[in-house]
């Protein structure tokens, strides 16, 4: 469980990565400009050569758009069971593998990876995820985090930032959007003391691929939380998906770090932290926060981001 994940002989050079087979193939029906398939493909660049893969998906945008019967975009074994149980379902697959492998009925090496939306991970699927992490299955759980329930039409989740408009946290005369702060799921996962936990963003592909490689090398449960903007729900032009994700990192609203065998480490430093407003102002879901009557909310959001960033720097031993 405490193998050094950094010392794996894997390349993050583009010329090597382009040779990797496409596991999530084209032809799926996700919106053009969707962040989710970018997160999936970057993660799957970390699959070691010569291993087989089983992918699990809870219900959500990624699932409904990539498996429209009788077609599938998955060039590997794939299972969708229900909305709240991808981790439990995959833990069953992994257990069957261990049992059959032990009996000599399976020869190949397999890896198991789940891609869950924030709703299926932070909220309804949290119990099943926690159970699977605690039981120590060798599986990777990736949350492709678009900060709301997109598949059902942009409803708030436990990952939705404070102040955000969603269809169930609308702003109006007596509301300025979602009242509550998002929960820190990455820290909750880290509290399970599993071999590897990380936070990543599709804007920083090299960082993400490196984390993916560590994830596939880890001999135990892994959790990775990947910011994957949804232009439909966040209200920005579809061509800006990656840039928006980059602003989230630069404003420290979405810091990039990892927790490897209990050790916290900042993986992307932010020398010039931009105000959180610079990230929010490009998104229609926060447009109301830039009105005079909501300036307190915007200020509070900045305070929260600053406080969380300070806390993270402490944990990573980077505080001044």
């Amino acid at each position, binding site marked *: 469980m405490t193998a050094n994940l950094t010392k794996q002989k894997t390349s993050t050079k583009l010329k090597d990565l382009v040779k990797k087979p496409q596991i999530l193939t084209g032809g799926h029906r996700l919106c053009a400009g969707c962040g989710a398939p970018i997160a999936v493909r970057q993660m799957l660049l970390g699959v070691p050569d010569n291993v087989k893969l089983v992918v699990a998906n809870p219900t959500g945008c990624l699932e409904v758009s990539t498996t429209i*019967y009788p077609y599938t975009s998955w060039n590997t074994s794939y299972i969708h069971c229900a909305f709240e149980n991808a981790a439990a379902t995959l833990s069953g697959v992994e257990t069957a593998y*261990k049992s059959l492998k032990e009996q000599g009925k399976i020869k190949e090496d397999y890896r198991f990876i789940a891609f869950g939306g924030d709703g299926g991970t932070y909220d309804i699927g949290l119990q099943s995820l926690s159970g699977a992490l605690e039981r120590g299955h060798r599986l990777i759980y990736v949350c492709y985090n678009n900060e709301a329930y997109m598949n059902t039409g942009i409803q708030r989740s436990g990952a939705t930032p404070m102040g955000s408009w969603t269809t169930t946290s609308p702003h109006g005369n007596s509301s300025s959007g979602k009242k509550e702060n998002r929960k820190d799921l990455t820290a909750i996962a880290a509290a399970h003391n599993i071999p590897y936990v990380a936070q990543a963003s599709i804007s920083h592909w090299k960082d993400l691929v490196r984390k993916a490689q560590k994830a596939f090398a880890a001999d135990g449960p892994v959790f990775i939380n990947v910011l994957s903007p949804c232009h439909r729900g966040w209200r920005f032009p579809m061509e800006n998906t990656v840039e928006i994700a980059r602003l989230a990192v630069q404003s420290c609203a979405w810091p990039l770090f990892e927790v490897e065998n209990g050790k916290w480490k900042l993986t992307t430093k932010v020398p010039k932290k931009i105000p959180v407003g610079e990230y929010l102002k490009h998104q229609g879901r926060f447009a109301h926060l830039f009105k005079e009557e909501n300036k307190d909310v915007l200020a509070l959001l900045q305070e929260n981001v600053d406080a969380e960033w300070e806390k993270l720097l402490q944990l990573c031993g980077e505080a001044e």
Partner: protein
Amino acid sequence: MAISNKLINSQTNKEKTGNDKTINNSKAVAIVGTDAVSEAMRQINPDVVAAYPITPQTAIVESFSQLVADGLVKTHMVTVESEHSAMSAAIGASAAGSRVMTCTSSQGLAYMWELLYIASGLRLPIVMPNVNRALSAPINIHCDHSDSMGARDAGWIQIFSENAQEAYDNTLQAIRIAENPDILLPVMVLLDGFIISHAIERVEIIDNDIVSKFVGDFNPPYSLLDSQNPVSVGTFDSLYGYFFEFKRQQEEAMLNAFKVIKDVGKEFGEISGRHYGLFESVGIEDAEFAIIATGSAAGTIRHLVEDMRSRGIPIGMIKLRVYRPFPAKELAEALSGLKAVAVFDRSDTFAGNMGGPIFIELRSSLYDLQQRPLAINYIYGLGGRDLSIELIEKALGELIDAARSGQVKQTVNYLGLRE
């Protein structure tokens, strides 16, 4: 628990076993119903078990955990954090081509509800003993059939047991039924909470080798771990897909199950001396009226019926074994020509005086008969309320009155209710 070692070391029983011939391949032991089930599970030796404890099923999970700890099975056990995850993990493991079992009761089964439909819809032959217990509220740990009746439309085969022996026998047969290529449906084996699960009974445990041969190997048609043929399982099948056709195929599989259950029951009879069909009948051929019951109550009722028959009363009895698929045609044939039938239900449907689920379905099965028997329903034993001989006698008295007068005084009756 120690019980499993005791069983393994116990002497082979050379006495007459079974109900029709002498078979010297089993040993008789005195065990509780939950141990009868875990013994069957030990012998099945599944690749994966995922389960969560709940009274009165708990002892099965405990004894099986001990079997795993003692290295007496090859099973990998997933000690999940809930029944929802138990069934989810079972689905994942079954889709990965392994033989999978789980078990539950009551609230646990209710918590699995969403996944029950997914297991059957994905055609995964998971076998699950369910120790019948009332559903909350008020919370109650004792027996009734409301839990498994709540799952009657979930696409699972459901087989009731009368006693610990049948719980053991049914669990073994369930594997063969579920995995039959013409079926590929999950199977629930039902046994009454406490009455069967916690009572010590004489149970004949068949020799390991014979059971292994009987259950055989599982050959899944598809597997997530077949790297040559990767499959996408549980895909999105909306407006333009084949959803309707899939559902019709599930019904086809249920139709196929009638024959397979009978075939497996016959084959099981050959190794055990105990033959099984869709239901068991007592004296129906020459009866004028009959009782239909299932589960442990059938034992008490049979005792009374046989006693009455010896006194020349033209009564018969049907013990319903297979509830899903519902053997409507065979039951109608058996009951055709009778004057009256009394149906015993250990759960209610709250449908507004429609009666219990077995009654509703049995009455509907009789509809096309030229000569329909009168039908009376007795709802009994909810939340573990005792079914005494006196209560059954009261119902029998009313049944005889109806048969004689040609009139039913009250169709739906609550037997043993404090009024």
